[in-house]
């Protein structure tokens, strides 16, 4: 193949062999995906969001297909951080997976509790604080909708987490200014930003005359949201260049299905790219997208991923 240097920064101390990750909630804890793609071939695997306690998630129906996208309303189903650390993480480490653990809580202290539990755990290369899940009962609890809440939560996670583990903040596009939220998160010590979470959406079933999802609203994902995601990455990277947001790596995601899509995010400013909804359609996509991205870089005479990061901003 080509001789492109695909190494990607995860944080100031951590460099990954390649930029491809999975989007939280789209790859479980890796066991099912591993049957299609060796997890060690990914830059990182981002887990389904884990809370400190067991959570059932929402009732069904939890899903609706939409044009070039889908709505999900899972509601953070999971067995809790202890179960993850005892039963899932050792297996992941055994596979050679580099794990970005997505965590959440309903309160800042719960985020911190989950982060602390991951201290020194083998296999964990970083933490993603999911401060933006739309499938929670109280929209006021979406920390990433408010700069001071986002600051407080990211600060608590950074303080509680292993210093060797970079902390990413996952942001929602459903805000007036994602740049303000990004600034708050990096001020709070975020080592990276994951952009974007799903957009809040809903479908009304024209036959039953009622909302399609049991949870009424859900998160919209898939290629339908890609332009929104690219815009968010571009805006935040531009603010980093301008010095109004501290410069940290961006993990870009939102409807990536090909290497060309991934390149779009990289050119906008992403150092890493995460695959989400595409995994439901094509679970072997991570290997394919990585190869396609590498070829796409080579075709454009880049010799490293690093050179292409934020390239769309140059000359502007």
């Amino acid at each position, binding site marked *: 193949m080509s001789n492109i240097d695909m190494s990607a920064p995860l944080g100031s101390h951590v460099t990954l062999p390649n930029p491809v990750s999975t989007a939280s*909630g789209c790859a479980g804890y890796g066991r099912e995906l591993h049957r*299609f793609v060796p997890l060690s071939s990914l830059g990182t695997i981002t887990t389904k969001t884990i809370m400190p306690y067991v959570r059932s998630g929402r009732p069904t129906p939890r899903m609706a297909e939409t044009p*070039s996208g889908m709505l*999900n309303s899972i509601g953070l189903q999971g067995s809790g951080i202890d179960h993850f650390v005892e039963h899932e993480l050792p297996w992941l480490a055994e596979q050679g997976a580099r794990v970005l653990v997505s965590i959440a809580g309903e309160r800042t202290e719960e985020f911190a509790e989950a982060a602390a539990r991951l201290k020194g755990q083998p296999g964990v290369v970083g933490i993603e604080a999911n401060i933006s899940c739309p499938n929670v009962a109280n929209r006021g609890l979406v920390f990433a909708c408010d700069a001071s809440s986002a600051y407080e939560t990211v600060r608590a996670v950074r303080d509680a987490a292993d210093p060797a583990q970079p902390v990413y903040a996952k942001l929602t596009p459903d805000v007036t200014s994602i740049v303000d939220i990004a600034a708050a998160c990096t001020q709070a010590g975020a080592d990276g930003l994951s952009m974007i979470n799903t957009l809040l959406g809903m479908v009304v079933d024209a036959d039953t005359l009622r909302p399609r999802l049991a949870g009424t609203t859900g998160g919209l994902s898939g290629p339908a949201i890609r332009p929104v995601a690219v815009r968010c990455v571009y805006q935040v990277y531009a603010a980093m260049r301008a010095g109004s947001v501290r410069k940290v790596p961006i993990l870009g995601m939102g409807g990536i299905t090909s290497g060309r899509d991934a390149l779009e995010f990289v050119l906008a400013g992403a150092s890493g790219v995460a695959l989400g909804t595409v995994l*439901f359609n094509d679970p072997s996509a991570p290997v394919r997208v990585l190869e396609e991205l590498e070829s796409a870089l080579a075709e454009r005479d880049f010799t490293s991923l690093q050179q292409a990061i934020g390239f769309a901003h140059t000359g502007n």
Partner: protein
Amino acid sequence: MDREIQRSESPLSRQSRPTPTQSSAEILALEPVGAYHRLVLDTGSDVAARVSPGHFAALAIGGRDSSMLLRRAFSIHRADPGAGSIELVFAVHGRGTKALAAHHVGDSVDLIAPLGTPFPLSGGPVAAVLVAGGYGSAPMFGLAEQILDRGGRVGFVLGAASADKLFGVGLARALTPHVAVTTDDGSYGSKGRVTDPLPGMIRELGATEVHSCGPMPMLRAVTEIATAYGARSHTAVEEAMACGIGICMTCVLPVVGEDGVTRFERSCTAGPVFDGTKVRWEDAGTLPAGLEGADAMNPHRVPAR
């Protein structure tokens, strides 16, 4: 014919959940069968040899740039290990199945199979009644053959809304004289539901197993009757899935575990075949009492920061 071929396979591998394979599968046949479509796919691998009755396949619709991202899951009607092919039966009822039906022989579709937990098969001879609604019968004929192969006896109860929605009455009659057919409108067989002839069929065969596939209210009613007559109830659910492989978490049902605790279990991995007595049918679509972790869904559980 399938029977002889499948007999040469290891019988011990049948209960386990095999590793699924993703492949581009060529369409060998695609044709209407009554109200349904029959689709034969060349798997180009040993997929067919790993299929047990109750396994399903998940197809991507329309290629890489399709606006339909979610896989469509179909139970596997037949597997021919010799030819390396599998046969699916589907109904056109949405955009995805409509697009699938518009394919031509020679086209390729992205296939993942085999998936899911199949019907359990006991090693020795048993008497079993196989109950299905509509094309839910698709996996039942292969299952019947395997039960017969083990020296067992089978009876069929097949039902549908109307005659054109029945699938496989002839296939059932070729396997056993014990076949009851019902339609809601009486256009074929006896007017009524599959649950009407079921008690008589269980008694007639002395059945200890009832295998069923169809809509949830049917599976619930079948389980109640099977249990009342002392038979085990193995139910294959038809839940909507986004991926079919266990990562999307959309196809969950409240299922009682061995420890007595109810959890949301995935129909694609823990199922599609469940012990019908363990599924809390009446609670599907809710957060029922006793569901593990349901308390965490209450926004008032903790003070808002």
